[in-house]
């Protein structure tokens, strides 16, 4: 069978990687904002805590001394803010931030 005549040419098969589920950051209503003054690894300069990295269901938080949240794919679920023992993450209305950014 020639390639163009092949059956099942269109299937949902893909390689794993960021963005396979689309730009899910656009789903976000609340944006997690990290305060480096309160964040344990940032404040102590130690590889410690990382509760946000452990609990993030989408793997968009880095395990770095100042964890970085990838807003391209963060859906804004708020689990990181809920789990952060230092209260370093605040969920802020996305609309307020967008209005501020547009000023």
């Amino acid at each position, binding site marked *: 069978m020639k390639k163009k005549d092949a*059956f*099942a*040419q*269109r*299937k*949902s*098969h*893909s*390689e*794993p*990687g*960021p*963005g*396979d*589920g*689309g730009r899910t950051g656009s789903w976000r209503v609340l944006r997690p904002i990290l305060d480096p003054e309160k964040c344990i690894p940032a404040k102590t300069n130690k590889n410690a805590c990382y509760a946000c990295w452990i609990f993030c269901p989408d793997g968009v938080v880095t395990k770095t001394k100042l964890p970085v949240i990838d807003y391209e794919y963060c859906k804004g679920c708020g689990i990181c803010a809920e789990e952060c023992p230092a209260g370093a993450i605040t969920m802020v209305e996305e609309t307020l931030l967008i209005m501020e950014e547009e000023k």
Partner: protein
Amino acid sequence: MYIIESGNVAAAFGVKLAETAVIAAYPITPQTPVTEKLSELVDSGEMNAQYIPVESEHSALAVCIAASSTGSRTFTATSANGLLYMAEQLHWAAGARLPIVMCVVNRGIGAPWTVWNDHQDSISQRDAGWIQLYACDHQQIIDTVIKAYRLAETVSIPVMVCYDGYILSHTYMPFELPDVDTVRKFLPPYAPEYFLDPACPKNLNTVTLPDIRPDVRGDTAPGYMEIRHNLHTDMRRSLDVIIDIEKEFYDTFGRGGHPFIEPYRVNDADYVAVCMGSLSYHLRDVIDKLRNEGIAVGVAGLRVYRPFPDKAIADAFSHKKGLIVFEKALSYGNQGALFADIKAALYAKTDRPFVRNYILGLGGREIKTCELADALRDSCKPSSATTDRPEWIGLKM
């Protein structure tokens, strides 16, 4: 080699000859002996397969979906409420384009409970995206299972092999057991182009958004609508594949040769009875009787219900005077599903026969030869016209 066995064992031997690698099934009457036979064959080492016992039909098909995704040839079987319990996974298997083969041992659906035969179970799943084949006797059951694997793996669409509960599943008949090496030539090992491999992780059937979007490499990935359109066009293209496979099977094994419609005294008939499954063989006796009375009637057994062979039906029957569609299933509130499909297939023809519909045998109600003869005597008249609603045979009220 000819053997005498039940229809369920014929199905199990078909699965054995296909060298199926993974079997997962949950027992339900009248399918149970298929699963029992297969578990025996695996346990005794006669079959080199994994038999995975599960707690439900939903899990049975989920196991087949997973195993098929890794590139294994898989099998399951069910009946009636078991098939309905699989419903979500049925649609998944088709959308995922997995060549799973399943026997549906046709049984009526509760409520009220019935364990006896009709076709409501498989007919109610006609829009799930599976190919549906119907067998008329034990030989066709074993042959159709083998052909079903060849078809499913060629077109990447799952296939149901449907046969009548009790009437075929539990009766014993002689049939020829195809030779292993000949089956191997006809059905080469399953070698999918794409399968799950731990060494090379992949995403299968992840969420699609309403529109298309680029994949991780930046190439445009098909969206839900493109994938579903492809399933439909491939289902339609499967009609040609069915013709080719039937021809090759006939050339190899010397049986079959009728891809869509199995005719009996149809060529010179003015009127044709149309039905699916064992009823078409039952009707042959009635046809002989009516021929002796001078009524020019034949019977056509439809072997393929999805994809619907509409062109074959229109070409075979548009010049006839009348078609009488006998169905063991009903689209409640409308008419027999096959009846509606046949009328639609004939609609584009300017010269077309009248089409009548009889519903019979629901929940195993006995189908008497004299009742079939009476229905055909009543219908096979030039004055008959197409009906909107079915008539019922054997209703006692």
